[in-house]
């Protein structure tokens, strides 16, 4: 039986990688992908705790997190497309000036 | 390393071998049936009545030159056919093709005929079929050519649109069978009404069967939904720039997808290996299974050479505005009747 802390460490490393991606990457799509990595790490935490507590609610929450992540990815990508049309660039530093 | 383990490994190898042979036989069958429908003989020269034609085709393809366009993405160009064919083979893993058998008493405990059987087997097939979309969209993108890109985008948009109707018609069958495992779905069709009419789900769900077959044809990019690879419109769609082995993998993936869809349709709607109690008691249920799969594959090929092709916007309109509401209504009516009759 794999101890619970092993799964939590994997999840923490993945969350840290996702956070590093959000901070360090200069491409809007890669930032959205890093957010998906973070959500995935949280899913792993929920399922691990649900398994080790014998509770099925861990999986139910993951179900809802996946659904919300799908909706958020769709709207986020639509926003990226709309932004790209105005500035022709995917670098978030190109959007620092508000209205020009 | 007891005998049962070795026999299970042998069954896995046999399934893989059967799938490869299926794609070869389908190449020949398609051309022969197409020929007979067009009032000519198909391939006739290689082997007796053209029976060795697939072998000649494969040898020709293997000896061709391996091309890669200059601007093509090096890794993705090779990865795309590998993804397609891997997803095609892997999707057959949870499809059972025979009852449990002890091989006429050779084994002490029965072994199931099929690669594996897990409790969410039907969804695994669906998940791996969704992975097949990547092969096509990457092939379209990595070729760095406009015909390929159009073909790839259209094919993948079509596949993900028809996946919805596919899944909803599956959900109605799962409701009736009470389990997500394909083996349980087949075994729940082993009941006979009036002694001889089997409880196949094609009788209980005729609309669901039609929706599943249409969605299956669209999922495998076969006519009349094969606009993305239409020879007349798009050169060859997403596999324009491919040659030799990489090209050979794409039609092979398509034929194996066809075989998987037919096998799943047989398991879900036509009772799998049940239906002829005489042969089943002899342990030859898999023959019945093969016969049914053959009938559905013939229907695939028949449809291709009979119906004209859908235009792309007509295709998407049909999938979203007609097939998806039909499958949802099918699910609702099935659920309502199930609740009324059993609740």
């Amino acid at each position, binding site marked *: 039986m794999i101890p619970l802390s092993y799964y939590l460490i*994997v999840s923490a490393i993945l969350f840290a990688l996702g956070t590093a991606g959000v901070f360090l990457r*200069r491409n809007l799509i890669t930032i959205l992908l890093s957010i998906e*990595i973070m959500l995935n790490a949280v899913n792993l935490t929920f399922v691990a705790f649900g398994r080790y*507590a014998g*509770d099925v609610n861990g999986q139910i929450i993951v179900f809802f997190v996946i659904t919300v992540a799908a*909706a958020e990815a*769709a709207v986020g990508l639509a926003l990226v497309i709309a932004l790209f049309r105005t500035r022709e660039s995917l670098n978030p530093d190109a959007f620092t000036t508000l209205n020009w | 390393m007891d005998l049962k383990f070795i026999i299970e490994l042998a069954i896995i190898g046999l399934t893989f071998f059967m799938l490869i042979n299926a794609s070869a036989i389908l190449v020949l069958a398609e051309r022969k049936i197409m020929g007979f429908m067009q009032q000519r003989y198909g391939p006739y020269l290689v082997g007796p009545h053209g029976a060795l034609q697939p072998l000649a085709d494969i040898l020709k393809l293997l000896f061709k030159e391996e091309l890669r366009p200059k601007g093509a993405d090096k890794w*993705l160009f090779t990865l795309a056919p590998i993804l397609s064919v891997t997803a095609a083979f892997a999707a057959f893993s949870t499809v059972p093709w025979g009852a449990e058998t002890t091989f006429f008493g050779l084994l002490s405990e029965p072994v199931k005929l099929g690669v594996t059987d897990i409790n969410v087997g039907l969804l695994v097939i669906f998940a791996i079929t969704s992975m097949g979309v990547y092969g096509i969209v990457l092939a379209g993108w990595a070729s760095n050519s406009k015909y390929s890109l159009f073909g790839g985008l259209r094919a993948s948009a079509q596949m*993900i649109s028809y996946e919805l109707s596919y899944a909803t018609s599956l959900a109605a069958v799962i409701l009736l069978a009470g389990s997500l495992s394909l083996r349980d779905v087949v075994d729940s069709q082993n009941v006979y009404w009036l002694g001889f009419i089997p409880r196949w789900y094609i009788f209980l769900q005729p609309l669901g069967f039609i929706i599943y077959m249409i969605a299956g044809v669209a999922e495998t990019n076969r006519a009349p939904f094969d606009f993305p690879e239409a020879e007349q419109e798009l050169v060859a769609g997403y596999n324009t720039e491919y040659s030799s082995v990489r090209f050979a993998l794409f039609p092979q993936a398509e034929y194996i997808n066809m075989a998987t869809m037919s096998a799943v349709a047989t398991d879900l709607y036509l009772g799998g290996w049940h239906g002829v109690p005489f042969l089943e008691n002899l342990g030859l249920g898999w023959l019945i299974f093969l016969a049914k799969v053959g009938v559905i594959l013939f229907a695939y090929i028949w449809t291709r050479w009979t119906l004209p092709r859908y235009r792309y916007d007509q295709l998407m309109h049909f999938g979203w505005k007609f097939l998806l509401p039909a499958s949802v209504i099918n699910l609702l009516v099935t659920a309502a009747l199930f609740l009324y009759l059993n609740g």
Partner: protein
Amino acid sequence: MAETFAFYLFSGLAIVTSAFVIGQRNPMYSVLLLVASFGAMAGLFIQLDAPFLAVALMIVYAGAIMVLFLFVVMLLNAPTEDALQYDRTHPLRHPVVTRFGALLAGVLVIQLAYALLRANELRVPISGRADGTAVSSVAELGRVLFQRHVFAFEATSILILVAMVGAVVLARKESDS
């Protein structure tokens, strides 16, 4: 034995592919590596007795959302970007900022390591069912989902509808009229 091997394989694959996702310059490769990461995550879910969630993850995330990402990358013809280290005047490269960030990261890692290593003491099942079989049945999942969480379920259906309409409206080109 096979269980530990499977765990190390899947978690190693997930971490390595996620590291490559954030380190890769070409967004197309990032999307494909993330699909591989989701595959590894599905393997971990199966080990945690959640097979339905594993296939649901593959179907929804890797089969639909990542295809959406791939479409957007191809539509926008997203260029490969310059990495942060090539831009020496970026405000995130200021020495005070980087040192403070490194300090905070170190504190966070120590805190997390301490908390995670203490998580092994959580051996007493909270709700009284310590076996895995009750958790992994799809029927049980459906029962709890549709009886206790039915309001959240209906709310997510409205959420998806709103997101769909919003995405179509936001990504639409301005019409000429």
